[in-house]
C-alpha cells in the first residue's frame, strides 16, 4: 500500500482549527482554504499547460518555441497573463451585454465544479460523491451552454457558426465519453471515484479489462479530445475559416477565461482518464515482483496522479499537432456511425466478460 496519505494532513488542519473555533466557523474556513487552493491550482494549471502546449507544438514543428522571456521562455505565459489582465474588455455594440458577460462565467463555473471532483492523491479529494462519474458528466455538460450563449450574444456570424458547431460536437461526443466510462463502471461496480481507484489496487483496469477496456480507453481519448474542442476537432474555433469561432469578440480577461477553461478541461479529461483507466494515484505494480512494487510504493501518490495526467495531456497535444482538422460532416459521422455503435457493442461485451468472470 501507499505510504503517503494526505488524510493526516487534512485531519491535522481540521483538528487544529476545531480547537478554539465553533464548528460552523471551521466549515467556513475550510471552504475558503479549499476554494483558494482550487483557484491557485486553476491558474497554475493554465500557466503550465499553455507553456507546455507551446513547447510541445514547437517540438513537433522543429522549432524552439518561446525562448525570450526568462530561461527557456519559462516566464512567457506569466507575461502573457499580465498582458491579458491589462487589456481592455471590449463589448460589441449590438451584443446582448448581460449574456455576453455571463457566458465566460458559466464556462469557468462548470470547469471549476468538475475540477472539484478530481481525486488528486490518497486522501486529497474535495468532493467524493456516491455518484462521482455521473456528477462529472452532468457538470461538464453545462460548459456547452456557455459556448452557445457566447456565440449567440456577440452578434457575429463567425461566432454563431462556431457556437453551432461546438454545440453539435459537444452534445454528440458527450455520449461516447459517458458510455466509455460506463464500460469501466461495469468492471469497478461503483460510480464513486475513491471506490473506482480502490478497485484498481491489484492492477489498472486498462490492463485487467482485456480488449474492451483498451477499446473504451481509445474511444474515451478521442471523444474527450473532441469534447474539449481541441484539434483535430477544433472546428468551433477553426482559425482559417472562423477567425476564432465563438470567442472572436472577447478580449482581455474574458477571453482569458475561455482560454483557461479549455486547458483546464483538457486537464480534467486527462484526470478522469487517469483515474478510471490508469488507476488514479495507485502506483504501478507488476504481479509478484515484491521488490519492484515496494520501490513503486515509495513514489508519492500525488506524483503518480500528475505523472499519468501529464502523459495523457501529452497524448492529446500529440493528436492536435499531428492530425489535420476534420470537417463537420466527418466529425459527426465519426461519432454517430463509428464510435457510438462500437461503444454500445463494447459495453455488452464487457458486461459479458464481467458476468463470466473472465477479467483478472
Amino acid at each position, binding site marked *: 500500500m501507499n505510504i503517503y496519505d494526505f488524510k493526516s494532513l487534512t485531519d491535522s488542519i481540521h483538528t487544529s482549527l476545531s480547537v478554539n473555533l465553533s464548528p460552523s466557523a471551521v466549515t467556513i474556513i475550510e471552504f475558503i482554504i479549499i476554494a483558494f487552493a482550487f483557484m491557485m491550482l486553476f491558474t497554475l494549471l493554465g500557466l503550465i499547460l499553455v507553456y507546455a502546449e507551446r513547447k510541445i507544438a514547437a517540438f513537433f514543428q522543429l522549432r524552439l518555441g518561446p525562448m525570450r522571456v526568462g530561461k527557456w521562455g519559462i516566464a512567457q505565459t506569466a507575461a502573457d497573463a499580465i498582458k491579458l489582465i491589462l487589456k481592455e474588455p471590449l463589448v460589441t455594440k*449590438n*451584443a*446582448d451585454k*448581460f*449574456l455576453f458577460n*455571463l457566458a465566460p462565467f458559466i464556462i469557468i463555473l462548470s470547469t471549476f465544479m468538475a475540477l472539484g471532483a478530481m481525486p488528486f492523491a490518497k486522501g486529497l479529494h474535495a468532493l467524493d*460523491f*456516491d*455518484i462521482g462519474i*455521473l*456528477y462529472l*458528466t*452532468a*457538470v461538464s*455538460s*453545462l460548459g*456547452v*451552454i456557455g459556448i*452557445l*450563449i457566447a*456565440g*449567440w*450574444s456577440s*452578434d457575429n456570424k463567425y461566432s*454563431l457558426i462556431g*457556437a*453551432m458547431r461546438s*454545440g453539435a460536437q459537444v*452534445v454528440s461526443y*458527450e455520449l461516447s465519453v459517458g458510455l466509455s466510462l460506463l464500460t469501466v463502471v461495469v468492471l469497478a*461496480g*461503483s*460510480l464513486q471515484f475513491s471506490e473506482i481507484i480502490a478497485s484498481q489496487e491489484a492492477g489498472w483496469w486498462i490492463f485487467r479489462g482485456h480488449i474492451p477496456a483498451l477499446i473504451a480507453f481509445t474511444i474515451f481519448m478521442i471523444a474527450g479530445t473532441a469534447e474539449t474542442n481541441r484539434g483535430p476537432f477544433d472546428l468551433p474555433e477553426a482559425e482559417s475559416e472562423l477567425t476564432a469561432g465563438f470567442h472572436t469578440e472577447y478580449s482581455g480577461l474574458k477571453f482569458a477565461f475561455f482560454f483557461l477553461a479549455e486547458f483546464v478541461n483538457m486537464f480534467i479529461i486527462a484526470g478522469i482518464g487517469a483515474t478510471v483507466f490508469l488507476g488514479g494515484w495507485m502506483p504501478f505494480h507488476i504481479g509478484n515482483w515484491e521488490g519492484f512494487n515496494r520501490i513503486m510504493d515509495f513514489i508519492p501518490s500525488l506524483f503518480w496522479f500528475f505523472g499519468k495526467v501529464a502523459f495523457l495531456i501529452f497524448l492529446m497535444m500529440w493528436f492536435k499537432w499531428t492530425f489535420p482538422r476534420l470537417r463537420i460532416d466527418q466529425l459527426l459521422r465519426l461519432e454517430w456511425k463509428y464510435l457510438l455503435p462500437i461503444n454500445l457493442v463494447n459495453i455488452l461485451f464487457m458486461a459479458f466478460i464481467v458476468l463470466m468472470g473472465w477479467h483478472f
Partner: protein
Amino acid sequence: MGSALVLIFAIMSVTSRKLLRAAIYLLFVLIGVAIFYLVLDYMFLAAVQIVVYMGGIVVLFIFSILLTSHLSEKLQVVKPLEFIIAALVSLIGAGVALSVISTHTFKPVVADSPEITVFEIGTQLLSYGKYGYVLPFEVISVLLLAAMIAAIVIAKREKKPES
C-alpha cells in the same frame, strides 16, 4: 432563499422579451431545483436533474433558438386580455396547489433515512420483485425507441423532394 431565487428567475423567464434570455433564466430555475435536491441530500436526483434538464433540454432549446432567431429579435408584448386570462389561470392553479398542500397532512418521514446509493437505485430499477420498477423501465424504453424512430421518419420525409 433558494425558493426565492427560483421564483424570481421563473418570473423573469416568463416576462423576458428576448428568447435566449428567457431560456437562460429557465436554466437558473432548473439549477435552483437541483440545489433543492442537493439540500435534501438526494445526490442522484440532483445529478439527473442537471444531466437531463440542463445538459439536454435547455441545450436543445438554446440550439433551436440559435437556428431560428436573431439577436435583435424581440418578442411581442402580450395583449392585456391575454395577460389577464393567463394571470387568472395561474392564480387558480396556485390556489388549488396551495389548498391541497395546506389541507393534506404529511406523514412524518423516518427521522434519519439512510443515504440512498446508486447501487440501490440500480437494483431497484431492474428488479421484478416487490416494489421493482422493471415494467415501467421497459415501457419507457419502448416509448423512447418509438419516439426516436418517429423522429427519424419525420427527418427523412423532408429530404425527399430535394433529391
